[in-house]
Each structure stands twice: as C-alpha cells, then as structure tokens.
C-alpha cells in the first residue's frame, strides 16, 4: 500500500458532453501505484466547503505523469470541480481501494454502464498491455454522446461491444443483453463490472447463471476513503459470515466478488 495526499496540477478539465467532464491531472506520484478499479478522493472546493473530498474511479493512466478521471456533474461538488481550469491545483488522496482482480482471468469480460465506464478504460488498458490478453469490453449508456472515451477504448487491443438505450450507437438496449450473448457463447471466465446497482445486479445474475465469477465495483457515500471512519458500509451477503454483516467500500472494495454482496 503506497498512497499519497498531494496537490496535483490540472492539465485539462473539459466537458465531453453537456454534463460529463474529463479531468487530467499531473500526478506522477500516483501513476506508478495505481491499479485498475482503484479510486482517488478529490477535493472539489476550498476546505471546508464542501467538507468532504469526492471519490472518483481512475479512468486512465495514459502515461507515467498523468492520471485521468471522468465525471458527471451530479451536484454541488462536481459542479465546483467542473470549474477548475488548467493551472489550478486539486488536492488528491490516492490511489485507494483494492482494484479488480484481472490477473486471475484469462478471458475477461468488462461491463461498464453509464459512468461505470470510468474504471473500464484503465482496466482494459492494463489487461491488454500488462496481461497481453484481448478483453471483451461491453459499454452502455443512454445515448451515443454518453459513450465517452470511445476513441481511447478503440486505441486499446480489445473487443468492443456497444449498447445505447436509444439505439444511437451500437445495439439498442442494455449492456446486459450483450453480456448475455457473450457469456453464452464465449470462453469468458470472469466478468468485471461497474455501473448503477440495478445493472450490477443483472450482470451478476447473468454471470452466476453462466457459472462465471463476477467482480463488481460499488459506490457508497464516503468520508475518509481509507477505512478509518467505517462510514461507507454496504450490506454483505449472508453467506459471507465474516466478522461483520457489512462491507466497507473504500477499503475492502470498491471491487467485490458479487457473491459477497447483498443484492436486496
């Protein structure tokens, strides 16, 4: 574990759709440590308003100096973040969390829905570049505009499958339909997924049916991001009869074996 609290310079922070932004930070201290599926806590305003840093998945580490995040303006904090400009600096704590267990898989299927696309780019890159495996990457969103970072995905050696709810790009419908097909007729041995809870649940159920193990990246309101406050609890599945009935997203996660999560 080697994590840092740093001031990072903003290289660029620009809208890629009306309300989705790509943030590029100068953070070579973080790039060497970062693993796909990990996240960082970003200070979006001036301390103490808003009080808490916000968690964002590492979207990509294109080179050893730069770390990227992709975020939707969801509220006050992300609105403030969206006003940062090149030359500003942002306080960052990271990299945090466990990351995906991609190196246990020989035929990985990545499933990102909505802003759940965020961690999939870095994951696909590492699987392809470090694991020398060509992953299947299924991405979905409401419409083509929200299928962000497509060019970056295309530059990676992966099999890219797209779905949009309005049919404006790729298959019309949900990622789960694509996943169903792919898991059915491929040698997929693991699914890695990030997105809204209902999607993750559906993804997990498809994986279970296909007897493929499934890792999901969860969200929770966070305060510390480092396992100190126990605030980011989510219910664990009954079968995981460990010490507690809760999982802590920032520390034991954000990536969990779907079997450990309570899906109700």
């Amino acid at each position, binding site marked *: 574990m080697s994590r840092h*609290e740093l001031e990072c310079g903003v290289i660029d922070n620009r809208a890629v759709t009306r309300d989705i932004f790509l943030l590029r930070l100068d953070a070579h201290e973080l790039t060497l440590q970062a693993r796909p599926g990990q996240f960082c806590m970003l200070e979006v305003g001036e301390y*103490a308003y808003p*009080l808490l840093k916000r968690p964002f998945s590492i979207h990509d580490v294109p080179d050893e100096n730069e770390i990227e995040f992709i975020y939707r303006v969801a509220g006050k904090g992300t609105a403030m973040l969206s006003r940062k400009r090149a030359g500003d600096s942002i306080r960052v704590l990271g990299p945090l969390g466990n990351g995906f267990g991609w190196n246990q898989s020989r035929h990985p299927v990545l499933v990102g829905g909505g802003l759940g696309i965020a961690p999939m780019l870095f994951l696909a890159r590492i699987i392809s570049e470090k694991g020398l495996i060509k992953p299947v990457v299924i991405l979905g969103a409401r419409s083509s505009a929200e299928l962000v970072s497509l060019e970056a995905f295309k530059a990676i050696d992966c099999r890219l499958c797209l779905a949009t709810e309005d049919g404006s790009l790729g298959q019309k419908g949900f990622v789960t339909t694509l996943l169903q097909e792919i898991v059915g007729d491929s040698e997929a041995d693991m699914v890695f997924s990030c997105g809204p809870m209902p999607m993750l649940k559906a993804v997990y159920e498809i994986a279970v049916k296909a007897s493929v193990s499934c890792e999901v990246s969860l969200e929770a*309101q966070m305060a510390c991001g480092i396992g100190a406050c*126990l*605030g980011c609890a989510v219910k664990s599945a009954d079968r995981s009869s460990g010490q507690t009935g809760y999982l802590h997203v920032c520390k034991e996660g954000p990536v969990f074996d779907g079997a450990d999560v309570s899906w109700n």
Partner: protein
Amino acid sequence: MELIQQPDLSVNIAGLELANPVLLASGTCGYGAEVADLVGLSLYDSVPGGIVVKGISLKPRLGNPPPRLAETPCGLLNSIGLENVGVEVFLEQKLPWLRSVNTAVIVNILGNSVEEYAELASLLNVAGVDALEVNISCPNVREGGVAFGADPEMAARVTKAVRNASIKPVIIKLSPNVTDIAVIARACEEAGADALSLINTLLGMAVDIKKRRPVLANVFGGLSGPAVKPVALRMVWQASRAVNIPIIGIGGISSWQDAIEFFMAGAVAVEVGTAVMVRPSVVQEIVSGIGQFMEETGAFDVCSMRL
C-alpha cells in the same frame, strides 16, 4: 544573537504524557494502522501526540445499517453506531501494532451499563494502553450512549465505576447535547475523572427530499466538523471554568489557528477528527503551527495560552 527558547509542546494530563497536544479523535482514525502512513504514526517521532482509537465495546458490534454518512454545510453527520471489533479482538489484534508506534494510546470505551464500562476498564489495565477515554456521549447507540452523558448522576456513576476499575488516567468524554455542560463536568470531576474531553457530536439529521426519507438509515446522526466549532469552543470555555481538571478540546478543529482558539478557551490538548479524515496531512500542519505560534508569542507551554 537572541536566545530563543524552544516552546515546549509536551503536556502531562493526569499522568498521561503527550509529546504534543494534538490527538487523533476517536472514530476518525480507526485503530491507527488505517491512517498511519498518512498522518505520520511510526516507530519513532510520530506526528500526533496520541491516538484515541475507535470506541471499543465488550462484544463486537456490527454498527448501524447504511447510509451512515451525510454531508452538511461545513459538517458531517455520521451514524456509524459504534461498529467495532470488541475488546478481545482489540487486545489481540490491534493493540500490538499500536504498542509498536511511538505515540500515546488512548482507548475510547463504550458500555451498555455501568458494569460494562467497569469491565472494559479492567480488561484494559494492560501495557500499551496509556489512558482511557470514556464515551458517555455517543448519540448513535440506543442503550447507554447518550443517556449516560445527558444526566449528571449517570455520568458520575460511570465515572466512579471506571475510575475504580482502572489503573490508567481516566478521561470522560462529554456530550454537547445538554442544557448545562458545567453541571455534567462538575459531576464527573467530583466522581473522580482525571480529565474531560469535549465535545462529542451534536445530534442532528438530514432529509433526502427526493427519496422522501431521512438520509441516514438511523434517522439521527452525530454532527461533526467545522460547523460545530463555535459550540465546542463555548463548551470548552464553560467546562474549563467549572472544573479544575484538564480539558481536552474537540470539535471542528481543522487548522493550527483552531487549535490555538481551543487552548485560549481553556483546553490543554485537542483532538482532531473530521479534518483528519478529509485531510490527513493537517495533523502535521497543526502540530507545526502550534509550535511556531508559541515561539512567536513567547508562550512557554500550552497551558499558558489560556485567556
């Protein structure tokens, strides 16, 4: 050349020796290992003067269902509900690491009854525990918790029981959710408390208007962070004028200036909670800033800053 006397940051609170007066507050630094690298807890020369570990109960507790956190303007509501590993696991698995670190270790304890507090205290009469902080003020558990802290008689009973059972300095941690903090403070002093720490969190709530329900599954939570600092300072001022035992100030401290405010109001040490979670490096800033302020103003020790 002028001879500048280095200010002495060390404090002794009823036998509890602190290298400096900045402690990590209970519940915001886990059992220490979670934050060690970021706040500078190490074998030699740790940054904080001490660590108050997460509240420990006799049996492990699962804590409250999520959501457990809500952000408010300059504040944080939490309803963790004292999730903890229990005293047994603490002694076996957490204390050894804490012993290896060069900082004072204060164990925050919480019982469901006076007897439980006493039992916890006697189980913690072991090497490596430098003091007890008795949480009679947690708003997040139904039995015990805040009830003890809201009533001077109950507060005194807990204090007496822990004082009798423990060979360590006993710090009673007070709740701010009371009409008159001075009354509670005096009751604890008379019952044998070696020191007081305050404040714990203010009871608060938030409503999720989209989901049409309280944000926290537990409905109420404890408010901490800069928002509560004015209330905490006022209570430290009142308590320090009501009793003769040392006061540890807590509540919204986020900078060395905040810490100095508490020293001036009457505290001899401070605990930093929410701010450490959000900005772990703040601990170093606070410790350095206090030293520099003392040097510049010629204060020879922390107590001398009191107004």
